[in-house]
């Protein structure tokens, strides 16, 4: 039961994007196409899962005063791995995300969860937290990028949905469009929460 509760916490109650509003740099920058949002979310989720597992396992071995550099070292290792794997197996997406993959190292969701959760909880709970937060981040990015791609390019995952009659709103693909869509989604999430939807 506790596992599910922690999972739901990341997916909804403390969703990193919509509730805590952290990790905004990749959120705003890469969500101009659904595939980019999805891969960015999953790459972050993978790094989060692997790092939280390792950190919760070695938490007692790491002295208090060097815990942050140690966490960053562990996170950076997994990020570099993801970077290699994407370049080897998904070269197209890797080049679209370019700089933002290495920047997962400094994504505050990961360091934040390592510090706030994995360093204080059991491995099983950390897995639940990583999955919840990781997938919570992924669905948020996916939703945002689907909206932006649909309004900006008239397509979803590169498949044309809206025909030639649709005046593609280029602003949705630019940073301004990211802020506008995110703002509207945040307002919507707040509204839903305030209505007490469980």
């Amino acid at each position, binding site marked *: 039961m506790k596992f599910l509760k922690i999972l739901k916490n990341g997916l909804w109650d403390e969703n990193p994007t919509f509730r805590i509003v952290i990790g905004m740099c990749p959120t705003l920058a890469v969500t101009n196409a659904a595939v980019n949002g999805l891969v960015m979310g999953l790459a972050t989720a993978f790094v989060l899962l692997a790092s939280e597992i390792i950190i919760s396992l070695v938490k007692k071995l790491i002295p208090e005063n*060097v815990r942050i550099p140690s966490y960053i070292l562990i996170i950076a290792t997994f990020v*570099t791995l993801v970077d*290699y794997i994407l370049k080897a197996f998904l070269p197209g997406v890797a080049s679209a995300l370019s700089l933002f993959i290495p920047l997962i190292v400094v994504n505050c969701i990961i360091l934040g969860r390592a510090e706030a959760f994995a360093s204080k909880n059991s491995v099983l709970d950390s897995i639940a937290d990583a999955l919840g937060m990781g997938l919570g981040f992924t669905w948020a990015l996916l939703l945002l990028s689907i909206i932006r791609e649909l309004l900006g*390019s008239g397509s979803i995952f590169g498949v044309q949905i809206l025909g030639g009659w649709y005046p593609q709103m*280029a602003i949705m693909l630019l940073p301004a469009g990211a802020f506008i869509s995110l703002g509207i989604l945040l307002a919507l999430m707040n509204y839903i929460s305030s209505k007490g939807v469980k």
Partner: protein
Amino acid sequence: MKKSILTLTILGLISALLLSFAHQLLTPIIASRQEEGKKDIILAVLPESNNFKVLEKNGIILYEGNKDGEVAIIARGPGFGGEIELIVGANPFERKVYGIKVLSHSETPGLGSHITGEVFEQNFVDKPFGDYQVVKRPVADLMEVEAITGATVSSQLVVDIVKKAINEMLLAYGFDAIAITEVPVVTGATDTSTGATITTGATVTTGATSLGGGEY
């Protein structure tokens, strides 16, 4: 203190070991992906060839397909946000372009970046050589290229590079170059004196200092 140093050293060693292992394992795959990618791209602009050889004619590197007359050439020039590199497949004897592919660019994501899209590339499929004009409406004749919405400058600069590539290819095969109309454009990079207008057959120099593509 000692324990801290020890912890970081051990962590660093484990991390380095793991990553060098991954690097060993994945670098050949990454390199072959890039090589494959390049080969596929060259063949993609040569419709009937299934192989090609690299040769140099008059100092210009050409990729000659195994089907007669099919030639690809790589050309570079300034873009809106940085250098654009693209490949043009054409037939200098029949004087027509088979198609183009953008190899690298740093145009605005979501706007200029559409130069890599199929819709824009379709503009150049089976197009006779000529002094193409960029238009902001559906094309009315073969010498026109429809600009990408919100990225007229990027579209113009791609067309300039394509025209320059055609001329380089024509010169390499001993034909006369086509006349090119120079269209002045303002790029997003710092220096707008820009090599955007390309002189026939000359090596393009990027006048603009690229700041990279980033608005982020």
